[in-house]
């Protein structure tokens, strides 16, 4: 192993690889170090059940395709990534046998919605159209730039008179929950439940005050959900290829134990193997802030107050996901197809949330460490990507909102109940799709919140978002105001993972934004800013 590089990046998830690829394209000698046996982080695709069934263990939904600059800048498609944008993006099936569909076409979505409420369908059309108009502006302002403060943002919106010029965008959204936003604008409980569920599955919990501020952006891309053909790991592989083609190196099974600091400056890393690598220009960590600043550096190397805040004030999501991965001989056939035939072609199906109260009740249960009566969401990727299962078969994924720490037994309690809760989730699915019986299900495995944190150390307490999404943990306050601009008190040490703005999900944003600051500090020509 070589010992000296310009840039050392910790973590080969999509942020680490993205940052590495940009820096390598900028002429830096880059190494990306990965603790696990392969690159990808949350872009993890494995044959968890049977040979030939490709299960996305973490990231399944790619919603920023063609919105995130790195997709084009790093020629992701040129490296072999193929995306499908399913025609029937998402559905909600309700206990009364009805179903609401989100298509890749606004007219068809509104037509489906109008079966519940014509008024709400028209409201949704206006909301979508308005949000779609300014989604580029919001992305440019909020996602793919180092963050502004909420205060700066709201002051600008007021100066531009945005409140008078739009129906839905308003400075008061920063004081409202998504529930409140939906209650103000929509009437049908099932439509509200679907729209709230969409927010939640994007990490924006519908009952949290202030998150309405981000909701128009979510609606603006509600039908931009993409499936990575052949499994999400293909994206990681493409990013690695780009890194390698531009002279960068990715080393797997390379666990960092220490960031070497000399006179207040990050100058390299030490691996668990004892080897030391020198960084001539920078070290960037894309793993969680706790590992980076509490485990990798000595307490004396950062201010005591910051050490205390990182120890005590980093906010993680108060719910996580329990998953069931399935190998199937049949696709689900929903009874709700009698109401809406296209539900059988929906990529993602939300099962049973019929009102905001249904969701709110489950959040209360989960926050108390309880297991909700399962209302999983079901994704069958094979409907749109037949390559992810043997011919004629299907790969399925059930996801259920769940606590990390179980009341009475803590996180360890999952070891004893994962299989049982998985059976309950499948039963819940079968209630809506009776053919999902033992003949249809060839094999299945549960994947518990505990396993999330064991497999992905940086997903602290099963936090797949790598930091709660709340008003005081977003923009320049994520994960703390002192760390909100990707720099740390240690010169040459940057934070470029999903703990940073904007957040987790496959956004590329943390790496892209950290890149801007690194480029400014190192006087790197920002060739990617092809305005």
């Amino acid at each position: 192993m070589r010992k000296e590089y310009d840039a050392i990046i910790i973590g080969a998830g999509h942020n680490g690889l993205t940052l590495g690829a940009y820096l390598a394209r900028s002429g830096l000698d880059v190494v990306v170090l990965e603790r696990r046996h392969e690159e990808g982080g949350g872009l993890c695709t494995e044959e968890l059940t049977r040979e030939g069934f490709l299960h996305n263990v973490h990231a399944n939904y790619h919603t920023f395709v063609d919105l995130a600059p790195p997709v084009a800048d790093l020629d992701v498609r040129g490296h072999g990534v193929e995306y499908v944008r399913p025609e029937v993006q998402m559905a909600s099936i309700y206990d009364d046998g009805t179903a609401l569909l989100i298509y890749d076409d606004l007219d068809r979505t509104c037509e489906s919605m109008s079966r519940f409420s014509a008024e709400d369908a028209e409201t949704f059309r206006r909301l979508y159209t308005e949000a779609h108009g300014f989604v580029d502006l919001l992305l440019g302002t909020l996602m793919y730039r180092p963050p502004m403060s909420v205060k700066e943002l709201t002051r600008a919106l007021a100066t531009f008179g945005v409140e008078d010029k739009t129906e839905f965008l308003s400075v008061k959204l920063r004081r409202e929950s998504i529930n409140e936003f939906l209650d103000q604008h929509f009437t049908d409980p099932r439509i509200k439940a679907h729209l709230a569920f969409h927010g939640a599955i994007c990490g924006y919990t519908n009952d949290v005050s202030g998150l309405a501020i981000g909701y128009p952006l979510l609606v603006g891309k509600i039908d931009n959900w993409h499936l990575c053909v052949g499994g999400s790991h293909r994206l990681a592989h493409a990013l690695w290829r780009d890194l390698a083609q531009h002279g960068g190196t990715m080393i797997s099974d390379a666990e960092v134990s220490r960031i070497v600091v000399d006179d207040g400056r990050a100058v390299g890393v030490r691996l668990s193997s004892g080897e030391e690598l020198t960084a001539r220009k920078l070290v960037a960590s894309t793993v969680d802030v706790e590992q980076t600043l509490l485990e990798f550096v000595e307490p004396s190397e950062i201010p005591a107050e910051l050490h205390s805040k990182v120890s005590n004030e980093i906010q993680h999501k108060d719910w996580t996901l329990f998953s069931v991965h399935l190998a199937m001989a049949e696709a689900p056939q929903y009874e709700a197809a009698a109401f809406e035939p296209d539900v059988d072609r929906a990529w993602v199906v939300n099962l049973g949330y019929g009102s905001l109260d249904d969701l709110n009740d489950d959040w209360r249960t989960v926050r108390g460490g309880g297991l909700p009566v399962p209302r999983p969401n079901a994704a069958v990727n094979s409907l749109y990507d037949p390559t992810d299962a043997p011919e004629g078969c299907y790969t399925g994924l059930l996801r259920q909102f769940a606590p990390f720490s179980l009341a009475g037994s803590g996180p360890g309690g999952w070891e004893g109940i994962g299989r049982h809760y998985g059976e309950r989730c499948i039963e819940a699915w079968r209630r809506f799709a009776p053919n999902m019986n033992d003949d249809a299900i060839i094999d299945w495995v549960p994947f518990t919140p505990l396993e999330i944190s064991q497999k992905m150390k940086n997903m602290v307490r099963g936090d797949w978002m790598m930091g709660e999404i709340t008003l005081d943990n977003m923009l320049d306050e994520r994960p703390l105001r002192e760390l909100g601009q990707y720099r740390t008190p240690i010169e040459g040490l940057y934070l470029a993972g999903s703990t940073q703005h904007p957040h987790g999900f496959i956004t590329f944003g943390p790496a892209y934004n950290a890149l801007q600051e690194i480029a400014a500090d190192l006087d790197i020509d920002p060739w990617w800013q092809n305005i």
Partner: protein
Amino acid sequence: MADVYTPDWYAAVRTAINDAVSDLADLPDGDWMVKVEIVGDGTSPYVAEGDERHFLIRIDEGRCDWYREVDGDEEGVRLNYRFRGSASTFDGIADSLVDPIDAALSGEIKVKGDMRLLMRHARHVAVLLEAYAQGVDTTWPEGRPPYEGGD
């Protein structure tokens, strides 16, 4: 009085902008290179359908340094912002019929560049836009918006 999209008009716009911002405090530091791309949409008589007219504007310390028509992207010029939209939209802005913020929010004008600076200097940007839209006594020799057949 100046005919729209003529050198006299650019000069008048420049004067209007600089007069408008002269009283503002906290003008942005540094210079911005701004490109405006006006795309013929079959309704404006000033840009034929399928044609484009491009304008390059240099803002220095918040004031308009110069404003000129260009053929396309110029080699060696690094843009800070690019505004692109239909001719009827830009004509409408120049004639105070279309609100430029509305046009940006609705996506009629696509904006590329660091939006944070525009947000941080919102007051300056608002004054600048107002001067562009209302500060020049524009004449319309080929016809004035709104155009027949336009939206």
